[in-house]
């Protein structure tokens, strides 16, 4: 290549918007009969304190263990004589009242890990606590069912283990336009064309070439599809609101992507929990409400299901820093238009029967929830994706 051409091409400004030929390859994304169902996964990262999210305000054990941080009865958004949502969840509680939500209490797994990383890995890989898996359950879904990286998008700068398979990874992008522009560079097109064999090798270099090729075709596909759609809905002006807007735009523009993942961090409230959690739940609540309203408006809500989880709950007993330490089982929220179980799926966690660490014991294995979503929503045999056999719960 001529030096001049190289210099000219190295600038992003010179990228021209051509519809590239390799778009054809992406048209081959298989559309199964259930392919139009979308699953949005939200992680409240850090371990949301479920006991202060859905509060058992009459429970003496709750009140006694949390002298400073117990939520005041009169501030709660009551859903029954004994239960109320945190005051920050106003918009969210409205979804509950409309029957768009199912709350699964005490979701977890045997021998829970109280490490963020390990427990996040367990939730993301759908492993047992004594089992180390190198792929995420969504990554395996891509590999076994979709067979295309475009089947799942993480709206973030980096790709989580959840989205990683052995040979297929999902795509991470916060901004399709930016992503597209970055991949359009004639110099790299030449480099990639030259090395047709390298990307087949097991060496790290092969991995780099393969990733570059995938990036290029995926970026083009996502950008071409989504650029025509611009959500008119109003989202909260924060990073989480922006992530949800991006997901909405992808869903509404007809992207075949089935699974979306975003996370909202900061829930690791070891100290001075009250204000931190109040702020975070408000961000979550208002974001979710905007998202649901947006999808309702476009008619996409009926085909969209939102799963919200945390890697663990927090300990019942507050600590001396007016925070809570890492706990075990926690609640999971499902949001959708037509759920089989509207409201509480099961009774709230039993605070009278805790494990040896003083944490909530699990009643529902989180992999039962995954199995249900795979079977009942995505129309896939759970055993293709999950290691072991798990119950389906009749959720959707």
């Amino acid at each position, binding site marked *: 290549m001529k030096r001049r051409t190289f210099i000219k091409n190295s600038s*992003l400004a010179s990228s021209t918007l051509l519809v590239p030929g390799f778009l054809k390859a992406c048209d081959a994304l298989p559309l199964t009969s259930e392919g139009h169902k979308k699953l949005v996964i939200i992680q409240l990262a850090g371990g949301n304190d479920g006991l202060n999210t859905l509060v058992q305000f009459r429970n003496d054990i709750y009140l006694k263990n949390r002298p400073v941080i117990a939520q005041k009865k009169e501030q709660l958004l009551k859903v029954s004589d004994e239960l109320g949502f945190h005051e920050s969840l106003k918009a969210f509680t409205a979804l509950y009242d409309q029957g768009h939500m199912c709350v699964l209490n005490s979701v977890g797994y045997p021998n829970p890990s109280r490490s963020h990383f390990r427990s996040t890995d367990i939730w993301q890989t759908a492993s047992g606590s004594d089992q180390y898996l190198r792929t995420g359950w969504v990554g395996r879904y891509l590999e076994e069912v979709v067979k295309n990286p475009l089947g799942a998008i993480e709206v973030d700068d980096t790709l989580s283990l959840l989205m990683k398979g052995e040979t297929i990874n999902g795509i991470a992008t916060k901004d399709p336009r930016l992503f597209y*522009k970055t991949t359009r560079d004639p110099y790299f097109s030449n480099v990639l064309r030259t*090395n047709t064999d390298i990307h087949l090798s097991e060496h790290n270099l092969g991995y780099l070439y393969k*990733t570059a090729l995938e990036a290029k075709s995926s970026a083009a596909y996502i950008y071409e599809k989504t650029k025509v759609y611009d959500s008119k809905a109003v989202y909260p002006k924060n990073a989480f609101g922006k992530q949800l807007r991006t997901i909405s735009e992808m869903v509404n523009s007809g992207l075949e992507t089935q699974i979306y993942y975003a996370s909202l961090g900061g829930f690791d409230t070891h100290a001075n929990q009250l204000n931190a959690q109040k702020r975070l739940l408000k961000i979550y609540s208002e974001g979710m409400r905007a998202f649901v309203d947006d999808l309702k408006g476009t008619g996409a809500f009926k085909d969209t299901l939102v799963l919200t989880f945390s890697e663990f709950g927090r300990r019942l007993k507050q600590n001396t820093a007016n925070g809570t330490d890492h706990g075990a089982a926690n609640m999971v929220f499902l949001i959708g238009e037509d759920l089989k179980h509207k409201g509480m799926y099961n009774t709230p966690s039993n605070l009278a029967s805790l494990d040896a660490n003083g944490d909530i014991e699990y009643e529902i294995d989180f992999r039962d929830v995954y199995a249900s979503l795979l079977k009942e929503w995505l129309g896939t045999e759970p055993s293709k994706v999950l290691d072991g056999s798990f119950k389906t719960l009749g959720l959707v």
Partner: protein
Amino acid sequence: MEKAHIQHLYRRAGFDILPKELEILSGKDRKSVVAQLFESSKKMVPLTVPTPKIDAYLDSNTQIDRKSKAFKELIRTSRQKHVVFNRAWVNRMATTGQGLRERMTLFWANHFVVRSNNILFSQQFNNTLRTHALGNFKEFVIAVAKEPAMLDYLNNQQNRKGAPNENFARELMELFTLGVGHYTEMDIKEAARAFTGWRHDSRGTFKLTNRIHDDGEKSFLGKTGLWNGEDIVRIILEQPACAHFIAEKIYRHFVNEETNSNHIEELAIVFRKEYQIADVMKYLFMADWFYDPKHMGHKIKSPVDLLVGLMKTVPFTWDKAKELKYIERLLGQVLLEPPNVAGWAEGRSWIDANTLMIRLKLPSVLLNDGEIAFDVKGEFEDSFEAFDQKNNFRRKLAITKNWNRFKANYGALTYDVLVFHILGASVSKETNHFLKTLEKEDQRNFCIQLMSLPEYQLC
């Protein structure tokens, strides 16, 4: 030693080697090359940035009022100083004569992971890593446990008798010394008791606060006694699992992500003798298997390695410290801002579609006045004032390049030799063929093109 081996050693144990230095070392035996590597890192030069406003505040002995305007201003200053310190650290790595010590400092920063809002604490922690980087591991663990940045980060500041906070005790074992599966939940509880009262004062000075320290009997990893924090560290290091855990971490970082249990065991045996970090590193760099061709050019550079490598070859400086931070963020590694206490996962996890594209663009963006697109609003906490609001989608970075130094170091090399210095010894047939199609007008532009290849991402 073969040139390719010296290059491999310096890429893994330091931050690459300039052609002239490589020329001087080539032909010497491995023992003296390795000895010189350690000799040159003997001294420890602290890294600090001036913090006059914060110093003045502390010197004035003002009662700290967290709600006051002055305090909030101080927090803002501290945040800005982190950006400056980040740049100073990257500059240090790119220009240091103590490559091994700086390499180890970076390695340990991803092992003993902290994040602090207080620049004085961050800086002090960073220098504690630098001090102990090649020293005794036991002293290192204890020193780290007493650092204000660590006491804050893992909540030991709130760990008190009768109401223990387990965060530090748990991560000490899970991430710093033993790894999951070598202790029980009970061991964590008992260890947490032993660290009660380990705190720092408002200036960051460590103090054992006896009033809230639990000096009672503890049963920890099968041993019962009136253990304090130092005892806990001692008992942990008596476990073979500890030496093995660190040996594996060293192997994964310095040799290969795919582990070899025999080689890790060799390292663990050497390490366990005295827990001297220099001993195990020396053993590693002397081992024949370290120079196995399958390890050479196989490691995916971390974002910081990539940046430092570019800065070493074509000396350049960041006129705006913030721009360096943005680039680090796009690449997935902002120094002083690890994602969590486990640090960055390294290896292939650095690479996804997004980060790879940025990596391939980087040489032309930095060195060829290319432009880079930043995600705007809602992305970077404090990017707004730094970037032109109207025109921030694409911009050129404020970089000062020293092409004369590049010319002095690389200008006289043939193109083939330049390929060796930039990409390493093993370049594929396809790539070699591709290189032939490139126009070789001068070393400078040829070099930028080499750096834009996927091959440059490896070391």
